[in-house]
């Protein structure tokens, strides 16, 4: 994207002037270099989101923004139900509540190093990953609805983890307002064998080493030390979320005209929050959030089993669990008034600051952990929400590195086997069932995640706490 198309507000903030049918401006948080690396489609998509009814303040894009569907990946937009605001299936995306969960192991990376191969094999054997894999659970109708209503709390009640896990999950592990009856039989069938599976694409389970601490006090509050070993899980709501997204996208795209909504792009499919379809989608989407939370909870349980085989002394305890594809009803201070807004974050992470009622104990004092997934060869980051009350972009930050090139380009540049061998030389063990899948996810196919999080910090979205690098990566 040519920065000349944007109005420069600061070195880290750029504005798209409201033109045509835009109801609010667009705002992109990024350095000039990151802007130059963005596809022109990001400009178009940020501007398109700004045309949706009831949008508040601005259509935002995070530093990792890239071309998505309707919304850019890295897009944030808030809507007021009382002012005709909409909820958009496209604004949440197919992988509802895709997110990152980080788990302390109680071990140092140096303790893991001599047994790394064994641990990698144990994790790979225990955690179902890749296309066509099945989970260890089969959920028939009643159990499925209980899972969709209960989320991670449902999983804990069935022995997958401990009650204290729930304190370290957004929504305390269970999204209120879920409506399992708004989820189709097709979506439920697609999920029947998929609870506790990683999926594929950019999803993974990694063991990571803490290699840099940026803020000692925040790191202490999060229980992070240099050279700690951490487990990081990146996955979402699996087939159920994908099917909900597919079905409601079509329903909303077809109904838009009846609601008097002009869609510049069918992928922006949306419905008024105060409509039957809007309410139905919110119920289904919240059930999708619970599915993702249950999924990451069961995977954590499996990771605990795999660790117990190799390191019986390991105690896996949650650092935090954040979702980055959601629409949530939140209270925000807007122009001096407390407002209840439906905030869409599509490839963006909530970043609540200290004092947020969502947070407990040490986290309430420190601010919410913002977990940023990197690539299998570079870094991941832990950031912190620092702004008390409503922060920038309705308290939101980036979610990952963001792709710099297509999968096709990546497979032309890299071969899966070579990527695996090269990473092994760097001490990173990859376990995957597909070499092509590894090539498509090669580290070089992504933007520089360090530049993304630095821009996020300089823009005031969140503060860097720690950098982590992978030791083991089980690829989905």
């Amino acid at each position: 994207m040519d920065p000349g198309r944007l109005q420069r507000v600061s070195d880290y903030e750029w504005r798209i002037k409201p033109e045509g049918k835009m109801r609010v401006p667009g705002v992109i948080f990024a350095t000039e270099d990151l802007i130059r690396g963005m596809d022109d489609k990001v400009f178009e998509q940020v501007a398109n989101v700004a045309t949706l009814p009831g949008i508040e303040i601005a259509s935002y894009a995070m530093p990792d923004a890239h071309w998505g569907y309707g919304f850019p990946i890295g897009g944030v937009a808030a809507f007021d139900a009382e002012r005709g605001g909409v909820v958009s299936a496209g604004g949440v995306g197919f992988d509802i509540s895709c997110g990152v969960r980080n788990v302390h192991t109680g071990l140092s990376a140096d303790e893991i190093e001599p047994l790394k191969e064994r641990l990698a094999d144990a994790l790979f054997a225990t955690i179902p990953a890749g296309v066509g894999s099945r989970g260890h659970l089969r959920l028939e109708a009643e159990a499925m609805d209980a899972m969709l209503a209960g989320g991670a709390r449902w999983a804990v009640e069935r022995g997958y983890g401990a009650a204290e896990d729930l304190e370290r999950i957004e929504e305390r592990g269970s999204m209120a307002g879920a409506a399992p009856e708004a989820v189709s039989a097709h979506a439920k069938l697609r999920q029947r064998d998929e609870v506790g599976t990683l999926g594929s694409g950019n999803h993974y389970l990694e063991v990571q080493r803490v290699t840099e601490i940026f803020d000692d006090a925040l790191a202490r509050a999060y229980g992070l030390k240099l050279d700690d070993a951490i487990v990081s899980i990146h996955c979402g709501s699996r087939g159920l979320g994908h099917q909900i997204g597919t079905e409601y996208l079509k329903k909303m795209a077809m109904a838009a005209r009846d609601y008097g909504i002009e869609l510049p792009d069918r992928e922006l499919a949306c419905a008024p929050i105060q409509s039957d379809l809007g309410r139905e989608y919110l119920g289904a989407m919240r059930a999708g959030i619970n599915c993702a939370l249950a999924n990451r909870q069961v995977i954590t349980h499996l990771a605990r089993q795999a660790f117990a085989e190799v390191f019986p002394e390991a105690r896996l305890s949650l650092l935090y669990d954040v979702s980055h594809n959601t629409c949530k009803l939140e209270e925000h201070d807007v122009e001096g008034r407390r407002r209840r807004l439906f905030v869409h974050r599509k490839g963006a992470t909530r970043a609540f600051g200290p004092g947020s009622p969502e947070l407990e104990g040490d986290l309430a004092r420190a601010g919410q952990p913002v977990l940023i997934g990197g690539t299998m060869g570079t870094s991941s980051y832990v950031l912190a929400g620092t702004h008390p009350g409503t922060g920038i972009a309705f308290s939101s930050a980036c979610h990952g590195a963001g792709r710099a090139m297509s999968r096709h380009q990546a497979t032309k540049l890299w071969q899966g086997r070579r990527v695996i061998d090269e990473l092994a030389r760097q001490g990173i063990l990859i376990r995957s069932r597909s070499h092509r899948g590894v090539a498509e996810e090669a580290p070089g196919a992504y933007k520089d995640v360090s530049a993304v999080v630095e821009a996020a910090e300089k823009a005031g979205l969140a503060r860097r706490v720690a950098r982590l690098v992978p030791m083991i990566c089980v690829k989905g």
Partner: protein
Amino acid sequence: MARQMEQSVPSESPESLLTSGRWEHFDHQADIGVRGRGATKADAFAQAARALTAVLTDPDRIGTGQRVQIECRAPDDEFLLVDWLNRIVYEMATRRMLFGQFKVAIEGDRLTAEAIGEPVDALRHAPAVEVKGATYTAAKVGPEPDGSWVAQCVVDV
């Protein structure tokens, strides 16, 4: 931009005769575009489905032992294409199958089809990535100047 162009040629399997035309992929920054070309709209839809399968694995290396009937209806061609591809995604996911050949008929707003394939074999097919869903991004169905048909959209992986 386009890749893996493929001419469908008669082979020992009579099924390859079912889908005349060819498929290709086109770039999307995070995902993949699938495009089918054929003499008729139905052929273009069948080839778009082969392009979808090719996101996971080589469609020509999929056995032809099982057949699944698919039917969908939609108010226009783009909705119909996205519906069709999403039905294949659904059948792949719930049956743990891959499909390499497709027999498609379209009458008005109604598509009926037979998807031909076999259960996923992780070692032999080594599927690269799961498709989450077909999208309306870059969705286009229509005739080309030479009278042939194209059907395309981006799929989320």
